[in-house]
């Protein structure tokens, strides 16, 4: 996987109107692998906390017996956080994370996040 491939995967997400940034995050470490973010977004903090949340959600899904999570969406007053776990078996794998405006087209972002996950798989 090359830096160009990572950029392409992020381009798929950031071209959606209302997306303020996208990142590839190492699910195990919570570190940023690649990012395209607008100013004012603390990439390292979002990466660390999203990876932590992802690990806890994965365990909750397992405990509930509903399998692995394929997409999650957290809506806040001033925006939304959307994440697609990119696979990776038992480990955290790569997460594809989008930060978006509150009125973004969620369905479209989800579609592009899933495409980006395929691109980096």
């Amino acid at each position, binding site marked *: 996987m090359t830096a160009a491939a990572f950029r392409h995967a992020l381009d798929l997400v950031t071209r959606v109107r209302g997306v303020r940034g996208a990142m590839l995050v190492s699910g*195990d*470490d*919570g*570190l940023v692998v690649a990012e395209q973010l607008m100013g004012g977004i603390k990439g*390292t*903090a979002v990466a*660390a*906390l999203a*990876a932590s949340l992802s690990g806890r959600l994965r365990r909750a899904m397992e405990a509930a017996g509903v399998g692995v999570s394929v997409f999650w969406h957290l809506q806040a007053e001033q925006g939304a956080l959307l994440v697609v776990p990119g696979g990776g078996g038992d480990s955290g794998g790569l997460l594809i994370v989008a930060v978006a405006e509150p009125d973004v087209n969620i369905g479209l972002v989800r579609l592009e996040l899933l495409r980006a996950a395929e691109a980096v798989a």
Partner: protein
Amino acid sequence: MTTRAVEGWTLQPLTDFVREASVRLVLLMTPAGQVLAQSGFSRAVDVMSAAALGAAIMASTGELARQLRQAPFAALNHQGQRHGIFLSSLRSERGPVVVLAVYDLDVSSLGLVQLFFEQMATDLQAASPKTASKQVLAADFERELSESLNTLFGR
């Protein structure tokens, strides 16, 4: 988890770091290995060993960087199968403080530890008194060490 400090100004930032980064063990010490605060340790001998080894690693990597004509390394992370070890230093009004943190990979991550380490560095910088720290003379070393360990383990 027990968090105790020899230097009181380190206690709140350390407590916050332990809670937010979900780290298992933490030592705050001077570059010479003099312990300022600890969290999670249950035996004095473990604190002494960890402080000596952590200070030695910082000294070794600092010298390695100097030999390479580089600035000192910002942080060192060692990741095992179940635990990670994070070693770094920060500046305070009382001089450099070395931080050794051990975290479980199940409940924390390098990203979280780095994120909240930066917060702790800011908090410690703000909390540190501007007076110079007391120098420990060789003649007093054993008594000072004993008093510090008593404080760190609530004796």
